[in-house]
């Protein structure tokens, strides 16, 4: 009989304790981020896919077509071409393709680049229905960014 009454009293008490916890959360702050309307500030070390860096002085990329990034890439997702032009000391980049479907974001290409021509972009809204949408022409992206 004693245990029965103690059971009822303890049970009721524990239910009330549970309810005080939830009501505290009810009046507590809301932590939801309204994603399409609000976004978290981007962290400086965020690693998106790689992108060519714009050289402010020259107005073009910094690439010297040494092919170091292509050679160091473990998954072979970088393809680039360059040509020798009259009156220019280094080779000029004519084509730079990143196959992002293969990239593992290891960052070796960024580290190995002697002229710091590569950097991580901050793009994360990458959605597509076809694989070909993730093969980026980085030179074209740089041109688009310049405008």
């Amino acid at each position, binding site marked *: 009989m004693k245990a029965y009454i103690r059971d*009822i009293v303890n049970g009721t008490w524990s239910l009330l304790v549970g*309810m005080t*916890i*939830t009501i505290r*959360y009810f009046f507590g702050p*809301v932590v*939801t981020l*309204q994603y399409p309307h609000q976004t978290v500030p981007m962290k400086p070390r965020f690693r998106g896919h790689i992108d060519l860096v714009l050289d402010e002085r020259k107005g073009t990329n910094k690439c010297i077509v040494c092919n170091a990034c292509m050679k160091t890439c473990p998954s072979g997702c970088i393809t680039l071409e360059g040509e020798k032009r009259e009156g220019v000391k280094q080779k000029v980049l004519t084509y730079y393709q990143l196959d992002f479907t293969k990239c593992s974001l290891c960052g070796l290409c960024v580290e190995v680049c002697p002229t710091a021509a590569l950097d991580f972009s901050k793009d994360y809204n990458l959605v597509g229905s076809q694989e070909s949408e993730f093969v980026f022409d980085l030179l074209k992206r740089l041109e688009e960014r310049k405008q």
Partner: protein
Amino acid sequence: MTIDPELLRLLLYLVGFIAFIATNAAYLVWLERKEAGHIQCRIGPKEVGPFGLLQPVADGLKLMTKQLIIPKGADSFLFRLGPVLVMTPAVMCFVTIPYSDTIVARNLDVGLLAIFAFASVNVLGLLLGAWGSRNKYAVISAARVVSQNVAYEIPMLIVIVTMVMVTGTMNLHEVVTTQLGGFWHWNVFRFTASPLMPVAFLIYFVCMLAETNRAPFDMAEAESELIAGAFTEYPGMGFGVFFMGEYANIVVGTSMATILFLGGWDCPFGLWPGLHWFLIKMYALIFTVIWIRWTFPRTTFYSLLNLSWKVLIPVAFANLILTSALLKVL
């Protein structure tokens, strides 16, 4: 042409009650989702209209546009009758509920009895709907609903008998008038009648939760065990009517709790009694009902029945005997 004023009165009350029930059903869903959201540190509905206030309208439109499918081999008459039998008694309960000194459709002398007579019909609706849908999960679930409702009807009615003894009337208007004049007159704090009065209120509240199939006693729609339970086969608005019935029953249950224990339209400090106090008390209780739903997980069926038969009924009986003894002595 003259219109019988009595007929006009009845019609106006009918329209008023149905509007009241429909808005309550719609906006209690909204309140439920908002409250659930805030308890879980979310916001809840917010996209449709300001603060998501048009969300119930959108939900209603969605339910109405769905096709009404009657399963093959189902008893189509019983299948259609199910939601009606859940909704109608819920509406009929409103007839005798006094919302203020003047707002009452019919001031019956047996108002309390009428409400509990009507309220017990909704189990029949659930059972017939489940039986008519020719689905074994629905039938199993309906059996659970019936045993649950029978189990919880008993302690609830024992508490009601106690309250009838204390107030000495079944007329709900008179039940409230005996409690007027400040919160120390309310039946919850009527310690001269029985020191267990708050416990009786608690028993009534728990039974009401179980009767309306609310969590943690929502065995009718235990989706993890029974795929939506008794109304598995109901599409669109058929399902919606079951839910409207559930919310209407919550409104009836909390109204009864307000009338029987919390003094109806009485102000706690003896000033400005009226409809607003009734609504404040009622919605505070509804808030608690929703708060309980989002606090406790669903119980198992055995502990549900154990709670009723081993705890609530003995305690309610003890309270009944204590109250009758004290009423005789004092």
